């Protein structure tokens, strides 16, 4: 089997016929993820498989940049289904997350004196959560509730009904239930603890930083143009860097960015001359950049020779 993640065709026709999120088996899932360029360990594949088969949401936690969001994107790609994304932020409310009535149209309707029901479907503005359980989808969409730890606690309560029964109750309309339960992926950077009630409605997975071996596979999959030896050294450097005490250790996303940058710079080897000016791709705090760019840099580069 050749591994070409960048190929626009994710699965073969044969695969596509079989790739239905609710009947997929674990091997197929692992293969499909790999073909899509997402290198997962067996624990993640297992949790994901169970979430799909048991029609449960999946709550993914981990440091920033370990591929939590990418997981949802990849699933949408694999199952060729729409990705509905809800980016959380403080102050996110029902009107922006689930639904809102189209007030200007309602007002016009009232003024036209048609006297019809003001709370009917055509006046409903569908926001991501409602879109996700909309009956018009041909197959289950992927619902990504990203960085839920950024939303405030009141918002979590809205999600309980959705994740428990995949339904949303609109007081004026009644309860809307999903025809195809969405594949729900919730991510958190753990900047605060999310309420247990929410987590208990989902399967839980903690994504660690990958091992050197897996990280090499990930970088190879994402930046296949990069020289294999250089790729190994890049990963060894980042892995050594994660052992240093930093304000924000680099995630896998940063490793991929750095590898891409080194490729564009036409680098053939990893040395201080190329590493120092590009550290900003790995580290996002000036203190960290200064620290890693100092005398420590030679140690880090030395660690990549092994």
């Amino acid at each position, binding site marked *: 089997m050749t591994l070409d993640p960048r190929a626009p065709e994710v699965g073969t026709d044969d695969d596509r016929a079989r790739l239905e999120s609710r009947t997929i088996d674990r091997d197929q899932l692992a293969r499909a993820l790999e073909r899509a360029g997402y290198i997962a360990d*067996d624990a993640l594949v*297992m949790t994901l498989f169970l979430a799909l088969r048991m029609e449960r949401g999946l709550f993914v936690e981990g440091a920033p940049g370990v591929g939590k969001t990418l997981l949802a994107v990849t699933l949408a790609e694999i199952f060729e289904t729409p990705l509905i994304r809800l980016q959380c932020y403080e102050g996110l409310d029902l009107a922006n997350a689930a639904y809102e009535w189209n007030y200007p149209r309602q007002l016009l309707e009232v003024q036209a004196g048609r006297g019809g029901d003001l709370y009917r479907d055509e006046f409903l503005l569908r926001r991501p959560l409602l879109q996700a359980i909309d009956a018009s989808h041909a197959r289950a969409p992927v619902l990504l509730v990203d960085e839920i730890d950024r939303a405030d606690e009141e918002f979590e309560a809205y999600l309980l009904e959705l994740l428990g029964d995949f339904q949303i109750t609109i007081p004026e309309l009644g309860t809307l239930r999903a025809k195809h339960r969405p594949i729900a992926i919730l991510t958190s950077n*753990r900047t605060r603890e999310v309420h247990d009630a929410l987590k208990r409605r989902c399967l839980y997975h*903690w994504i660690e930083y990958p091992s050197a071996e897996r990280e090499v596979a990930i970088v190879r999959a994402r930046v296949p143009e990069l020289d294999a030896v250089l790729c190994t050294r890049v990963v060894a450097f980042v892995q050594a860097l994660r052992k240093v005490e930093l304000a924000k250790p680099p995630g896998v996303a940063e490793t991929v960015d750095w590898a891409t940058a080194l490729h564009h710079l036409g680098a053939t080897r990893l040395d201080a001359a190329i590493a120092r000016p590009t550290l900003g791709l790995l580290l996002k705090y000036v*203190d960290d950049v200064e620290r890693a760019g100092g005398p420590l840099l030679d140690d880090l580069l030395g660690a990549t020779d092994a």
Partner: protein
Amino acid sequence: MRDALVADVVGFARSLRAAGLPIGIDQIARCTEALALIDPPSRRNAYLAARATLVYRQPDLAVFDREFARWLGDPTAEPQPMPRAPRHGPKASNYTALVAYMAQRANPSDPEADVPEQRKAASATELLHSCDFADCTDDERRALARAMRELRLDVARRTSRRFQPAHAGDRLDLPRIVRDAAKHGGVPAQLARRRAKIKSRPLIVIADISGSMELYARLLLQFLHGLEHRHRPTEVFVFGTRLTRITHELALRDPDEALDRAARAISDYGGGTRIADSLHELNRRYARRFVKGGAVVLILSDGWETGDPAALAAEVAKLHARAHRLVWLNPLLGREGYEPRVRGMAAALAHIDDFLPIHNLNALEQLARHLSKLPRRKGALVS
């Protein structure tokens, strides 16, 4: 077969519960469902499936691994090092600065306990308000504690992005206008309004409990403890040589007892005060989680740093960048003629918003007033 599986899962769930994991009936059902789905039913697969369905908090993972290994009777099969909580041996001394302080107080020949002449002229209440906490008698301290309960702390709040109906709100409330218009034949007779909700700011307290600072920390925490129910969220950290988070202990215990425990743990290490190290730990481990949402940070310390003052300045600057307001409380500021010459204090001064005394009841009142008037804009002066 299924029944046997359920019985097995229930048994395992029981041992997990005994180990402190909150396992509900729904999770047992889910785990059984998951185990029936896995193929082949190998040990590794059973482990992964059970973990995915039974654990939902990252710190529980290690406990789960240990219990799983024990359940299947093979402790080597899933070797996962258990992170150990730092422990302090039984030889740890019960000595705290307060014990020393109280022993000294109990000694009637203590010259400090004498009431200075000049106090006789002032009224008892005035005396109580201006008496340095460190110079109070036990009776006075009890009276202080009572008086403190009368104080109110109302930290200035901020506007949220959520809205609530309000007569004189600054925005139109469209949902209500539409409902109202429908009732009046399409004419929005009343323009309903709404305004942003007001949210309280998180309060973070970082108190130095080394040496003479412990007494002041105790009084500050006593003061804040009474407010806990009114002012949430409040996070409390104490430090001597290292930082300890005591928020949970304070919620469960009396503040004195919580401080005793923290002080005992810290006194093991002896040595000087490492403010920079403690703030570094705070910035690294906790700041992202707690110092956000327009937080107000109170640091209580005399600024006596035994380490590098430049390092202290850097950590204070980092904390300042995250906080809405950084207030440094220094009891020595109440002493006549005190100047922040201590190297650590001088270095930190450049990065704090307010520098206030906290040596007596008047100072506490001043602090409460100050916090209630914090401006909306970061770094602006209090009017």
